[in-house]
């Protein structure tokens, strides 16, 4: 086709729209594949025999498929213990975070008190403090309390409102709940806490679910706090265990990159499974607060 013909073909409105649309699909698909390839490659690597890891061109489908890589990871590091520790921290901290954030959020949404605006601004202001700035003094504090190498530094602080993002999320939700419900409960003689607990909270399941997911993601993936506070292996979380495995896998002998990939897949799996079932809440949480755990 000559250039003029191409141009004529393209100027037809219908064809142009079709062409643009096809182009969009091609670009979006290519980009999406690029985002997923690293994960596919990881799963593939995790099932390879050691020699297959290091051949050119890359092998995508392992032959033979070595499921025993996963069994070997379980032998080399106490995965079950690390999973148990992480789950324990995640649940204990998450429960405190969601519950106390709901209480505080309700306080900011429903009650008028002197200084409310200022205090809320302070709360929002704490979002701007990089937590790295607090690492040293908080470590000193927990060190003096003899909390280091226990789960306490990773759990207890979350029973105090659970951080500005979660409180903000809750408050925004409660602002959208009509106050008529509170007033009706008040007329029936219910106290403030009772109203909150048995009228408002049961209505708040969507936001509680969103906050729980965010909290789970945050605590499950957290690395820097466990790194600082947990020292003995018995207390390690999955992320710490993975880092430990990274350092031992690199020492002498046969390289264990395939096992390292298997261990990484195991660390990814719980959060991916949760994501499959709760995708809506993940998306909502991110859109409303914009944080990554």
């Amino acid at each position: 086709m000559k250039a003029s013909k191409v141009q004529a073909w393209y100027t037809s409105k219908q064809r142009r729209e079709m062409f643009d649309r096809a182009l969009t699909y091609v670009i979006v698909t290519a980009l999406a594949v690029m985002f997923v390839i690293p994960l596919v490659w990881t799963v593939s690597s995790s099932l390879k025999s050691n020699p297959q890891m290091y051949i050119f061109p890359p092998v995508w489908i392992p032959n033979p498929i070595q499921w025993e890589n996963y069994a070997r990871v379980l032998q080399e590091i106490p995965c079950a213990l690390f999973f148990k520790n992480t789950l324990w921290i995640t649940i204990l901290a998450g429960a405190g975070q969601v519950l106390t954030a709901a209480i505080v959020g309700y306080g900011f949404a429903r009650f008028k008190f002197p200084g409310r605006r200022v205090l809320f601004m302070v709360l929002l202001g704490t979002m701007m403090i990089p937590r790295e700035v607090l690492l040293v003094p908080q470590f000193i504090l927990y060190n003096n309390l003899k909390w280091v190498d226990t789960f306490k530094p990773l759990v207890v602080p979350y029973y105090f409102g659970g951080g500005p993002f979660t409180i903000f999320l809750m408050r925004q939700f409660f602002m959208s709940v009509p106050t008529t419900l509170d007033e009706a409960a008040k007329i029936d003689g219910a106290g403030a806490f009772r109203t909150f607990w048995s009228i408002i909270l049961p209505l708040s399941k969507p936001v509680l679910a969103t906050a729980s997911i965010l909290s789970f993601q945050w605590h499950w993936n957290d690395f820097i706090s466990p790194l600082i506070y947990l020292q003995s292996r018995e207390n390690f979380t999955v992320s710490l265990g993975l880092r430990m495995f990274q350092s031992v896998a690199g020492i002498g002998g046969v390289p264990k990159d395939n096992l390292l990939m298997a261990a990484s897949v195991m660390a990814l799996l719980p959060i991916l499974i949760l994501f499959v079932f709760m995708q809506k809440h993940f998306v909502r949480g991110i859109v409303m607060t914009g944080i990554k755990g």
Partner: protein
Amino acid sequence: MKASRRQALQGYLFISPWLIGFLVFTLGPLLYSLYVSFSEYSLFGSPYWTGLDNYQRALFEEPLFWKSLKNTLYFVALNVPLSIIGSLLLAMLLNQNIRGKTVYRTMFYIPSITPVVATTLIWVWILRSDFGLLNMMLEKIGLPAVPWLSSTRWAIPSLVLISLWEIGGQRMLIFLAGLQGINQELYEAADIDGGSVLQKFFHITLPMLSPTLLFNLIISIISSFNVFTTAFIATKGGPANATLFYVLYLFKNAFEWFQMGYASALAWLLFIVVFAVTVLQFVLSKRWVYYESE
């Protein structure tokens, strides 16, 4: 009168968990760290007042301080624009009328929810100079291999690449929510007036999206200044301190060398820089951020 006092009391009671937590776990430590930053402290004994020594040491005596600051600024300068522009483009692509939107969205978003340690290990494997997937693919299409994480020149761009992959989908989601909030009638009106694609982008999309843009920008800058885990796992600051980022340097001083005083001074300097940048953005944002309700 009595009812309002009662209400105030109840309000304070409800927010008291946060108020106590703020005093004990945030404000207290913040002030204490200011004090420690003017002293020498190794966790044993008590802090020994040394005045401005730590600050003087950071600013005038330690070449690693400037090195780590320079590395961090380089990372911020690469990461922030690329992640903002990239995720905005992704969001605009996905905001078209295409099928399978949720599937695409999930594919972009999945890296954002996974543990950073695991994804970083994955990337270390992909970016290996020998037998790394990326280099093997480059070789296949006839391009020279790149010594990604192991060269001083490529190490920071490599970490930017990892970070874009890890966070791009999430920033995209936020943009997507912003785009979906734009009133479609504006575009229809522009179509009637014969507005071009670029005109629509600069005169409708960008102004209407500016609050979302500001939000993403601030979050992106703060998190880029605090880059830590990826570098800690992938390079440990190497090669030759090429990826020694500020927070990594702070971490080493505090938790490997136990120089709590010096590390606190570093933390405060970081706080001041990040705070100044954030305030500056809010001030500048008055010129370019458009709020519909005003």
